């Protein structure tokens, strides 16, 4: 390589690529097949949401926060409602807290299954992708049953939740859960034993614990690198102080560990939903609506499917927030992710990228180098995935 017959070329990755369904661009500097540097460019989905919050009332803000990210929308509304409740000095009734936990966990199951399916696809295992997404529809049905909509649940509101569940609904949900659990246990076995998956993920994209802390990663990515952190346990919100559950931590630090953390979390979430529905307190589901908030500042943290989500609200009185800051998990993981690519082959890019479960709609809520024509090569994620298989 001395004297450099191989020159470094730029590999532009995005913004239109079909597998992750989000317009983002990565610029990889590659030498031969090896990635020497990766630079993420974000901003294609910047919609100016933080500014929009300042223009809209607290009530409209619920629906706006939900639309920061469609996949983890419940985490966003839980966090938003909590931060507003903190400023307004109100505490939702216990039944609402349990229902929030139920929908939050169903949302986590759907998000994790979605990612595991996409991961299987990126690894070249299309059958598994289709199977996981088929079983994900079971969760979508449950979400629809409880909240009335498949994706955007609009379930949480300031001071409680909007819909109650009756005994019949609970029975229906409890009937589906064992079915789902059985399927997920089967997928756990597949992810644990399948040679295709193990070959593509074990010892790929290693993020040591020390680096995980230095680069401030969150969520399953941190827990896959032996960092023991889970907001649900550490700063309990909703009903998590009363629900028993385990925090999944693995110390392999590679892509495989990050996927396994998610598989096991799905199983934990199923148990949480079951426990919460069986121990659902009676009583009202929401407090009378307040429109304006007194001056004050509050912070709310929530464990979204992808990691720690933070809302910071500054109120100066009145019906609109003065400032609302949203920190979404993917932004925290992006920097570490771009370090992970270095030293790996081009074929490993999709596997590593998918293991951070990127959600750029989140990342860009407040907002790639332009696709340079000419010398740079444009490669779609699917093409990359294909190359990886060959």
């Amino acid at each position, binding site marked *: 390589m001395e004297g450099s017959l191989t020159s470094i070329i730029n590999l532009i990755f995005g913004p239109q690529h*079909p597998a992750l369904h989000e317009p983002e661009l990565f610029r990889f500097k590659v030498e031969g097949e090896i990635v020497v540097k990766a630079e993420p460019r974000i901003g294609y989905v910047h*919609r100016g949401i933080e500014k*929009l919050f300042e223009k809209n009332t607290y009530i409209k803000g619920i629906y706006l926060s939900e639309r920061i990210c*469609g996949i983890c*929308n419940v985490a966003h509304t839980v966090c938003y409602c909590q931060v507003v409740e903190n400023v307004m000095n109100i505490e939702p009734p216990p039944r609402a807290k349990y229902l929030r936990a139920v929908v939050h966990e169903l949302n986590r199951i759907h998000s994790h299954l979605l990612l595991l399916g996409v991961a299987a696809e990126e690894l070249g295992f299309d059958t598994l992708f289709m199977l996981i*997404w088929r079983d994900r*529809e079971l969760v979508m049905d449950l979400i629809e049953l409880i909240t009335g909509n498949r*994706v955007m649940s609009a379930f949480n509101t300031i001071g409680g939740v909007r819909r109650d569940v009756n005994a019949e609904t609970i029975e229906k949900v409890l009937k589906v859960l064992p079915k789902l659990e059985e399927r997920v246990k089967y997928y756990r076995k597949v992810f644990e034993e399948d040679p295709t998956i193990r070959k593509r993920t074990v010892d790929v994209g290693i993020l040591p614990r020390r680096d995980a802390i230095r680069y401030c990663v969150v969520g399953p990515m941190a827990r896959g690198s032996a960092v023991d952190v889970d907001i649900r346990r550490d700063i309990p919100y909703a009903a998590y102080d009363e629900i028993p559950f385990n925090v999944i931590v693995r110390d392999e630090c590679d892509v495989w560990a990050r996927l396994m953390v998610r598989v096991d979390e799905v199983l934990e979430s199923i148990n949480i939903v079951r426990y919460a529905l069986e121990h659902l307190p009676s009583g009202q589901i929401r407090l009378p609506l307040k429109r304006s908030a007194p001056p004050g500042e509050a912070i709310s943290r929530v464990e979204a499917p992808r990691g720690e989500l933070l809302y910071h609200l500054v109120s100066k009185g009145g019906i609109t927030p003065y400032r609302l800051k949203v920190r979404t998990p993917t932004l925290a993981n992006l920097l570490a992710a771009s370090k992970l690519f270095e030293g790996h082959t081009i074929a490993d890019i999709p596997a590593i990228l998918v293991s951070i479960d990127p959600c750029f709609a989140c990342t860009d809520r407040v907002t790639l180098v332009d696709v340079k024509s000419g010398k740079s090569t444009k490669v779609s994620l699917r093409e990359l995935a294909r190359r990886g298989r060959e």
Partner: protein
Amino acid sequence: MIDVYTLKRLALWGRLRSPWILHFNSGSCNACDIELLAAITPRFDVERFGIKVVPSPRHADILVVTGPVTRQAAPRLKRIYEQMPNPKYVMALGTCACSGGIFRGSYAVMGGVDKVIPVDIYVPGCPPRPEAIIDGIVKLLKKMEAETYGK
């Protein structure tokens, strides 16, 4: 001898029976995107109707755009539209793509898809269910058929 007219009809017949879709996210929150993806998975399985999601604009008949068009994505959306071969059709999927939705009025958002490129069919909903997406595609096929044979 096959004349040009027959060849054209043959191409249109093929297009109507197997429309290929390109998906572009111009600033969506991912909700519409996962519902579009759900439409190709076993429960809904649009591939049995010949509807296929393709990775390149150069292979696509229908461009499905989700999300409000952000300032950053607008030039890229335009470029992708220009790269598609004729005849091309555009579907605006979801309320944001139809009108800008909840993000209308933001400094970073241009508005609906029709602010940037011409749209043939609007599928509102936040997000539209996979059934609604399939319905939208079928309606678009009827439109394509009418344009082809109707005249």
